[in-house]
């Protein structure tokens, strides 16, 4: 709200007092007292002055009867003013005599602790998302550290903080945790969490209702602004311009800004360069796909919050099979918890397998040939050697891995795998799959290798 040019100009209060003195001369005393009592300039920017009035009835009266007088009087004092807007005070002005009435009911009466109960709908924060429930693993260490740094020096160290990563990797959790932390530990700070889509809708509505200035003020009052999924305002010229100005206003006043998106700011399509530059001007942290250890840790943390426990081997199985999306992982766990409560017994690996059948990465139309092509390419061996009867070591191993991946990842039946890979017997395929499965348990480099291959196949 503090404008850089404000200092050179008259303060809002002075301006309005001077205006009122002149208006008073030109109107009758009763009329002046009735219509101009409890009015105030609440905001002034560029060339618009916003006047707060006690009620809508007064607002409409002033607009209709005194608008010209107010504007012309204001202009005699400050000729840069072009427009006057009226708004109703958020709450009625407290008449002086009321303050003393029924003097503070009874000081010895205890009162409710209401202060902590204002869950301000305006900040949109979900109290569920806190740092306590945020699982930190190697994959999100950087983003987490950056967020913590923001908490220590808001508006200074990393401004803006830009978090990006695919859906379900915990961006929203992390940025909401920042907001919740501020809300809890710095009650004086005004925090707003908003999705970019909501921001755009607010902006459009304010333009339609003709009070764009209200919109500006509303957003500029925050000490911490958190905007989720900025990619959704791609190609919205005016909204982006508004965000640009808002960004500048907040940053100039050392207010912390946090963004999240699904892409690196420089790769965001449909954004103006000046905005991209500003996104990238602070700290950028990626939250990539969680690694298997982190997934295990996340599963354990989630189970704990459910007050539920399942055997280690099943946790490992889930961590191996449901990859990437933490949201999906959560869904699977909810399903497992629900199912086992329903059945009233501990759950077996087979149960889990049937439960998560649909959550396994679906075969996104990747053909067996495609898998073979990619894996052969990865190991740098001729594709057709996979289909041949050759038992060269360089070929046998990739072939087994292909079989394993086809089976585990795409649920292809053993006989059809055998058939497709050069007419092998299904027992050969079973043997290969078992062998790789056993080896993964002892050989972590193989595990990483297979993870890479999976990513490679799904990356198509």
């Amino acid at each position, binding site marked *: 709200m503090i404008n850089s040019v404000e200092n050179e100009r008259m303060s809002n209060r002075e301006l309005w007092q001077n205006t009122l003195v002149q208006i008073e001369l030109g109107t009758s005393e009763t009329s002046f007292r009735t219509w101009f009592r409890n009015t105030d300039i609440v905001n002034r920017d560029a060339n618009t002055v916003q006047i707060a009035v006690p009620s809508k009835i*007064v607002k*409409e009266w002033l607009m209709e009867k005194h608008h010209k007088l107010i504007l012309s009087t204001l202009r005699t004092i400050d000729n840069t003013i072009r427009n006057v807007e009226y708004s109703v005070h958020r*709450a009625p002005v407290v008449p002086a005599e*009321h303050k003393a009435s029924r003097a503070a009911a009874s000081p010895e009466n205890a*009162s*409710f602790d209401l202060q902590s*109960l204002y869950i301000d709908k305006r900040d949109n924060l979900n109290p569920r998302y806190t740092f306590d429930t945020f699982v930190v693993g190697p994959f999100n260490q950087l983003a987490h550290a950056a967020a913590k740094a923001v908490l220590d020096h808001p508006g200074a160290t990393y401004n803006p903080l830009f978090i990006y990563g695919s859906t379900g990797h915990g961006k929203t959790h992390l940025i909401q945790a920042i907001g919740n932390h501020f809300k809890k530990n710095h009650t004086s700070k005004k925090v707003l969490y908003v999705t970019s889509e909501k921001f755009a809708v607010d902006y459009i509505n304010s333009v339609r209702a003709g009070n764009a200035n209200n919109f500006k003020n509303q957003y500029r009052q925050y000490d911490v602004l958190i905007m989720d999924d900025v990619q959704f305002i791609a190609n919205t010229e005016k909204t982006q311009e508004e965000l640009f100005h808002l960004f500048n206003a907040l940053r100039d006043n050392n207010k912390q800004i946090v963004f999240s998106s699904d892409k690196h700011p420089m790769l965001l399509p449909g954004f103006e360069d000046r905005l991209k530059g500003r996104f990238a001007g602070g700290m950028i942290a990626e939250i990539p796909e969680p690694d298997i250890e982190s997934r295990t840790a996340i599963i354990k943390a989630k189970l704990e919050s459910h007050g539920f426990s399942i055997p280690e081997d099943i946790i490992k199985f889930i961590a191996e099979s449901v990859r990437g999306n933490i949201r999906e992982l959560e869904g699977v766990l909810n399903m497992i918890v629900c199912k086992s409560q329903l059945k009233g017994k501990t759950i077996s690996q087979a149960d889990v397998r049937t439960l998560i059948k649909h959550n396994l990465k679906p075969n996104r139309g990747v053909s067996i040939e495609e898998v073979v092509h990619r894996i052969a390419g990865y190991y740098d061996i001729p594709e057709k050697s996979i289909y041949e009867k050759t038992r060269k070591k360089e070929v046998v191993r990739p072939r087994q891995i292909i079989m394993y991946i086809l089976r585990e990842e795409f649920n292809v039946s053993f006989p059809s795998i055998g058939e497709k890979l050069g007419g092998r017997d299904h027992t050969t395929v079973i043997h290969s799959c078992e062998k790789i499965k056993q080896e993964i348990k002892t050989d972590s480099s193989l595990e990483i290798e297979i993870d890479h291959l999976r990513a490679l196949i799904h990356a198509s």
Partner: protein
Amino acid sequence: MKIGTTKERLLNAILLAERIVGKKESLPVLSCILIEANDREVTLSATNLEAGVDIRLPAEVEESGVVAVSAHVLAQTIRSISGDKIQLKTEDSNLLIESRGTKTLIKAVPHNEFPALSTSVETKGIVVSRENLLRGIQSVSYAASPSMIRPELGSIFISLSTSGMITAATDSFRLAEKVLSNTAIKEDQDILIPLKHALELTHVLETIDSETVTLQLDESQIAVLSDGIKIGHVRYVSRVVDGQFPNYKEIIPKSFTTEATVLKNDFAEMLRKARIFSGNDQHVGLHIYPNRKIFSATAQSNDVGEMSDSVDAALTGDDIDINFHIGYLNDCFTSIQSDSIILGFSGPARPVVIRGVSDANFTYLVMPLNR
């Protein structure tokens, strides 16, 4: 202007409008009722700038026109008229009232500064039962703070949702909540109406006789519309508070360490006795000892003396001694229909919860005294 109407109609409308007019307004026209006649209708309006009312009543309009006269004088005049039929007309811009032999002339006030009550027709409005809205506000209004220092506490909170209507008010020393679940409302809406205007609204709701009223809300104002037979079309507008009511559900204890079930009248009578001896500060001590089956109250003051009284009660839980402000306890009785009430305590520094037996729709919380 020249109109004819019945005394009853006109008087009802004028009494409704008279309550709204500003009491200490510097602008003379604000203590007036504006009478506007056109086509087949007469509209009476009054406003105190924060709230306003207009009433359209059917009348024989011979000549249309506008006049503003003092609400007080007009109400007195119409009240004292004995005839059924009343004729109002302007003469030299003053108001001439004629009825069966009586003739009165009321000095009119220039009406060009009478503000129009804005019409926000954009919102389609929410239809609620008149009786529910009235009961909802009346059941909780005494718990609101009389001061507007914290606007949300000086207001009545009305929450409309698909599950019904909830009204609540608190001044941070006590809290009242009323649930009216038999009204289904299609959209969610939270409204904060300043206590003063909410009380004016209850008077309007009491006077009109329509089954339902329509609420129209915009960012700074609520309009309550009704179409009744007795008075005609009434529209009451009030400013609303743009704020957040505390999430009070959090402070309502879910379980109790001590519970007492007593007859409402017994308890009220006990408090009445205590009131005599409590002096100016109105403090009462409640002593509940479930094991010895004792539910008693004590009060004393240096000037008057002291008392102790006990009533029959069904008690469970731990022993407790706790002090309250009598007025705070008393306030809720009119809102409880049941004969018996349950008092739920959860410790010496925690609020007592008062509900009617088998009535979960009304909840009242009172904080104890600090000592």
